[in-house]
């Protein structure tokens, strides 16, 4: 990329001297000097980044090929260096591609795609190779085998930093036990100080990729993260750009390259979510900016001085009295149909009337006559524009404004429009007119016209203006005219267009977010939410959140916040991330978590997970560590977290009330039996059975069984304030009869009688069946918490 500075006048020699030392820089060289931008700023971090790049690539490759990922990561100590090995069971890479993928920066398949992928730029893994060769002097060793091949390809590659091309030192075939997959070995200067981050990265990757099996072997430890689902993420599809997400340069390039002839065709062809209706909408907006609108004036009423018909009649000479009168009448009649008339409507009316008269009377109405007629009619219509202007201005301003001031403004405004002109304006021009008139009025009439009042007047007039019937320009003309292109871009942005399709995104789904958390955290409670897709800058995105609470989650200190973008854990720069900001901004006390000071990361045994999936996640830097603070994304993150947090709240509330219930029950369970015992002693009567009383006190559902001869009655008494939806099963070892309303299933000599009664608050239901007197039924009740159930059979 040559970059010569233009010469300054008269200073040619210096400039030439300078030019002699100027040369282009290879991209590889650039990154050699700017390792930190890619996350290789320290030995500790380099190790994490190398693993991350390798694993991300492996996951992408496997998913694209529809293979459940099986990834092996190993860190070996090699004298002064560390060796990083990443191996996958992906589809493998063809012989021709291997050197380029690993030995050339910015080589990739995804940069131009609008599709959710982990990697995008094609920098990551080759940057790791580059870092490895710079610090250890050793090439990257790559083994890859595709399904079709019996043998694997083995390469030793470095990046030629001058040319940004791969330099191959060894190329051979070898045998490999894997049927397909890729293995890369990098030796690099590094240290294990970021061990925690490395483990976090792998663990968190396992959380958001429950379909992957990942193994991490360190010199002194080994971790295995098993697969939680066999369901691969939904395949993503590439989408065309969304009209809200392109920039001017891109739009012009697209307009130049398109095969379409019209703007409408171009829009429908090149963009997603644009049909003919949306295209028309955009074109209307575009035409308002490009050609402007024509201001309309009220059609003069009969009693008013301006007699349109007479004026038109006067303007036409030598066409015969009858034809002229008829012509004028037709023009007047056609225009009288409109309340307000724009100039193009006059032209159309005159044209139509002239054609009609021509046909009926045989008199030719040439263009001169027509123009004169148009001028006369337009003159008559615009003659009353001052009172008309007053009406509009008056309607747009508040009643508090002085009438004389409004009159003055209306007059000045009307004066901006010459009687003979087309009165065609863009909104901007209109605003200019209003501004000038208002400024003048302020100056002369000692009145004030604020911004709101001015804008109201503009709106009133703009609404009274009509879109011109001109044909829109061709798309190639737009491509050549920067102003037109800019108008088109504005029109695209201002038009409401439905969000881009989400087929290009592969959210984890709430279900699997929960499964992922469940897999890696042994908690009491899990919740997850997936938002609908939203759009930021034309790129659709989906935010998902998950919460794990209680159990073995570390209860000391702050909750753990897991951040993910396109299924990649974000390990560094926590404080700079929009996700962290949102978590801190939520009032967690509302959701039952402890949050000192009412803001910040909450305390307690909680894990909060946020995943942002997008065709283009906006990161704060190239090293992709933190999501940028984009309001649309922050809002969705917040909503996603709140959705999951609401479930947490009801869980915690329920747990609290269950806790209180248990405490009450415990307390009563010491008091009441003691009381009962005392009572039996004092009254000198037999010991008391108090289960039923307890059930009543605890507002429990009490299930009792009565037997009488061959009849069994199961009585369900609901002492709670709410309905109870129960599933009651009696397991009987003899064949029952007359089971009323029960579903009876026989299995291995046992009969399962199943009822699903709904018992209202303070109501009782009796389930009856007949069975042999010796039978020993077993009762089980589902659909209610154990704390709220008392079975007394």
């Amino acid at each position, binding site marked *: 990329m040559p970059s010569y500075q233009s010469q300054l006048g008269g200073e040619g020699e210096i400039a030439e001297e300078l030019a002699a030392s100027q040369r282009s820089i290879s991209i590889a060289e650039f990154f050699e000097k700017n390792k930190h931008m890619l996350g290789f700023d320290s030995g500790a971090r380099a190790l994490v980044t190398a693993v991350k790049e390798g694993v991300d690539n492996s996951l992408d490759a496997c998913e694209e090929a529809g293979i459940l990922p099986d990834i092996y990561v190993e860190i070996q100590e090699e004298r002064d260096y560390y060796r990083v090995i990443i191996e996958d069971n992906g589809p493998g890479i063809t012989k021709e591609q291997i050197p380029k993928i690993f030995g050339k920066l910015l080589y990739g398949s995804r940069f131009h795609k609008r599709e959710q992928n982990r990697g995008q730029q094609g920098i990551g893994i080759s940057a790791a190779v580059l870092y490895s060769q710079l610090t250890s002097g050793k090439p990257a060793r790559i083994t890859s085998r595709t399904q079709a091949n019996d043998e694997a390809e083995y390469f030793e590659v470095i990046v030629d930093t001058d040319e940004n091309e791969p330099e191959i030192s060894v190329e051979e075939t070898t045998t490999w036990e894997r049927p397909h997959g890729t293995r890369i070995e990098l030796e690099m200067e590094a240290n294990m100080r970021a061990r925690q981050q490395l483990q976090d990265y792998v663990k968190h990757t396992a959380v958001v990729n429950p379909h992957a099996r990942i193994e991490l072997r360190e010199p002194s430890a080994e971790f295995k993260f098993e697969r939680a689902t066999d369901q691969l993420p939904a395949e993503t599809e590439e989408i065309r750009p969304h009209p809200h997400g392109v920039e001017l340069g891109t739009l012009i390039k697209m307009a130049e390259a398109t095969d379409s002839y019209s703007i409408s065709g171009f829009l429908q062809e090149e963009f997603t979510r644009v049909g003919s209706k949306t295209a028309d909408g955009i074109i209307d907006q575009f035409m308002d900016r490009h050609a402007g609108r024509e201001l309309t004036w009220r059609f003069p009423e009969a009693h008013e001085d301006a007699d349109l018909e007479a004026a038109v009649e006067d303007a036409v000479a030598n066409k015969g009295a009858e034809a002229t009168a008829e012509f004028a009448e037709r023009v007047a009649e056609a225009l009288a149909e409109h309340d307000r008339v724009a100039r193009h409507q006059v032209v159309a009316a005159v044209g139509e009337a002239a054609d009609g008269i021509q046909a009926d009377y045989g008199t030719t109405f040439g263009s001169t006559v027509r123009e004169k007629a148009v001028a006369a009619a337009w003159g008559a219509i615009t003659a009353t524009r001052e009172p008309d202007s007053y009406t509009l201005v008056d309607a747009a301003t508040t009643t508090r404004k002085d009438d004389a001031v409004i009159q003055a403004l209306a007059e000045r405004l009307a004066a901006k429009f010459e009687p003979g002109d087309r009165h065609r304006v863009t909104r901007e021009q209109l605003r200019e007119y209003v501004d000038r008139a208002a400024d003048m009025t302020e100056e002369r009439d000692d009145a004030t016209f604020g911004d709101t009042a001015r804008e109201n007047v503009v709106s009133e007039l703009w609404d009274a203006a009509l879109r011109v019937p001109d044909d829109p320009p061709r798309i190639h003309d737009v491509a050549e005219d920067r102003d037109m292109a800019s108008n088109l871009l504005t029109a695209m942005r201002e038009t409401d267009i439905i969000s881009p399709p989400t087929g290009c995104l592969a959210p984890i789904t709430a279900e699997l977010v929960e499964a992922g958390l469940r897999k890696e955290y042994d908690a009491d409670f899990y919740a997850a939410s997936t938002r609908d897709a939203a759009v930021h800058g034309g790129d659709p995105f989906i935010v998902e959140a998950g919460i794990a609470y209680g159990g073995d989650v570390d209860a000391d200190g702050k909750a753990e916040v897991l951040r993910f973008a396109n299924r990649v854990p974000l390990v560094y720069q926590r404080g700079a991330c929009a996700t962290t900001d949102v978590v801190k901004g939520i009032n967690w006390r509302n959701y039952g978590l402890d949050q000192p000071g009412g803001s910040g990361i909450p305390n307690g045994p909680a894990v909060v997970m946020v995943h942002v999936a997008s065709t283009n996640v906006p990161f704060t830097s190239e090293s992709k560590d933190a999501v940028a603070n984009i309001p649309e994304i922050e809002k969705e993150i917040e909503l996603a977290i709140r959705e999951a947090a609401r479930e947490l709240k009801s869980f915690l509330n329920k747990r609290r009330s269950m806790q209180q219930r248990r405490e009450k029950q415990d307390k009563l369970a*010491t*008091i*009441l039996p003691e*009381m009962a015992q005392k*009572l039996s*002693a004092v*009254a000198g009567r037999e010991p*008391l059975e*108090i289960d039923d009383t307890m059930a009543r006190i605890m507002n429990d559902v009490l299930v009792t069984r009565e037997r009488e001869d061959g009849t069994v009655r199961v009585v369900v008494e609901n002492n709670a304030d709410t309905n109870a939806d129960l599933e009651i099963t009696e397991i009987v070892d003899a064949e029952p009869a007359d089971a009323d309303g029960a579903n009876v299933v026989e299995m291995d000599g046992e009969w399962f009688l199943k009822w699903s009664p709904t018992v209202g608050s303070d109501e009782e239901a009796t389930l009856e069946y007949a069975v042999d007197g010796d039978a020993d039924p077993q009762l089980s009740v589902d659909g209610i918490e154990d704390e709220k159930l008392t079975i007394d059979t």
Partner: protein
Amino acid sequence: MSTDDTTDASTETPDARDQLLDLAAQFYDQFADGDVPHMAVPTRTKSNIEYDPDSKVWVYGDRTSTRSAKSVRGAQKLLKATYTIEFLARQLEEDRSSTLRELYYLSESWDLDEAQFSSQDESNQLVEDLEIVSGATREDFHMRPEESGATIMGPLLLREQTRRGEREIHCQEDVGEGGYQIPNNPDTIEFLDNDADFVLAVETGGMRDRLVENGFDEEYNALVVHLKGQPARATRRLTKRLHDELDLPVTVFTDGDPWSYRIYGSVAYGSIKSAHLSEYLATPEADFIGIRPEDIVEYDLPTDPLSDSDVNALESELDDPRFQTDFWEEQIELQLDIEKKSEQQSLAARGLDFVTDTYLPERLDKMGVL
């Protein structure tokens, strides 16, 4: 004067123990039926007492509070009640007695922490609950308060049934200056003879001593009963018996402040806390001597200004159904008006004999007692 020996409702009903056991049985049955054990007692607030025109005393109205095992608090109350019933039943069986305070301390020995009383108010209240629900009295349970030390002085001969045998005592001749001490259960007393014309119940010890020193009881044949502040049940019971059995008019002489009016109120109308025993304790015919707010004005007595709590107490008395008579409304409003109160002993400002020579004779004369 005749001696009357009737001891109808006053004597210990032999079945107090059975009544307690009935209550226990009631709880037992509630358990046995799978019901939630509960007991309803009248709400003991001033909004729930009403005048009973038959007995002319104030008794509890229809509102009740339920002690139910549905809540932990209620269950605890019932547990304590059960323990207390057991204790009282055994006490009655063994014919022993104990004080309210002893009951409170005794609960410390009950094996379940939940059964123990947290304050004496709680145990006192529970005993009152049991009285109400069983229909027996505390005395029937052989429960007594701490010695109140209230005394009586005057021309009365009585026989007391003590645990150490019968004693015949004349309340002037056989006693020292302190007078005859009223026992906890005055129903063990039998009136033998008397020369009394009326009963004079006095609030403060200082005034009682003044009356005795001045020989008021001898001069006017008065039975001077020392109330000792808010009178104990025994004092009220004895006063009622003096009125009912000996047909003596009863007069009450207190300080001139709202708290003292309540002392009169509990003698005459019954107290809110023991309204279930009003019929047994209250002397509706008792008359108020003073100090009336009117006296403060009339005799120009030395005064203290009313405190805020005095004013509140007076206003609360205006709402109290027991004080809704013309006399009290007039007096209380007058006092609120002059914003002053006086003690009995402020009469000494006119000389030590003023109360016995002038004030009491004048007032008693006006009241038609003398």
